[in-house]
């Protein structure tokens, strides 16, 4: 596709439910990032992939958060046993090797009720 695609755009989950958020990066983009953005705040780094390798997961807030990119393209961010504080917009971004500019998707707004 022409840009980074995230699905779903909106997700409402009941507390305790598991959710999976999908990111389709721009074709050929090696690097992939996930961010969590609370209302009115800046994006907080969650994790970073280069191809299928997860090089940095230091931003994942708890062991309920898990990200994967098994074939080096599509990535999934999974949140287990969701809690209210997980409510946020989750942004995905990708970039080419050798180009530091990151291209962003429109995000998934997660609301935990």
């Amino acid at each position, binding site marked *: 596709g022409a840009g980074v695609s995230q699905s779903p755009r909106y997700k409402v989950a009941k507390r305790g439910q598991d959710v999976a958020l999908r990111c389709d990066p721009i074709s050929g983009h090696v690097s992939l990032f996930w961010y969590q953005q609370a209302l009115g705040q*800046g*994006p907080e*780094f969650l994790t970073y992939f280069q191809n299928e390798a997860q090089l*940095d997961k230091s931003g994942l807030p708890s062991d309920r958060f898990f990200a994967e990119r098994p074939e080096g393209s599509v990535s999934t961010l999974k949140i287990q046993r969701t809690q209210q504080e997980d409510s946020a917009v989750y942004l995905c971004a990708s970039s080419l090797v050798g180009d*530091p500019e*990151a291209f*962003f998707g429109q995000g998934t707004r997660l609301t935990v009720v």
Partner: protein
Amino acid sequence: AQTVTQSQPEMSVQEAETVTLSCTYDTSESDYYLFWYKQPPSRQMILVIRQEAYKQQNATENRFSVNFQKAAKSFSLKISDSQLGDAAMYFCAIREWDMRFGAGTRLTVKP
């Protein structure tokens, strides 16, 4: 890890005037990249301007320019001839391997 600080939560500018948004950062690397991104209410992050740390010349993109002070670790954004469409959240970011953002500045443009 690198950090980014934006000390102005909100800024306001009159249409056609100039405004400067501040950003400071911290990094232990000598090679990195700096960015300003714009995020309108639609949530789509849009690149405004980028600066390579090894370049001394300040980047410019039409009405947008930066003042990059490497020794001071400062990277401010100047918007000239402000337009109503410039109203948005502006985020400063630094990239070494991964990319980190500041908390953002909400820019309001008054007609």
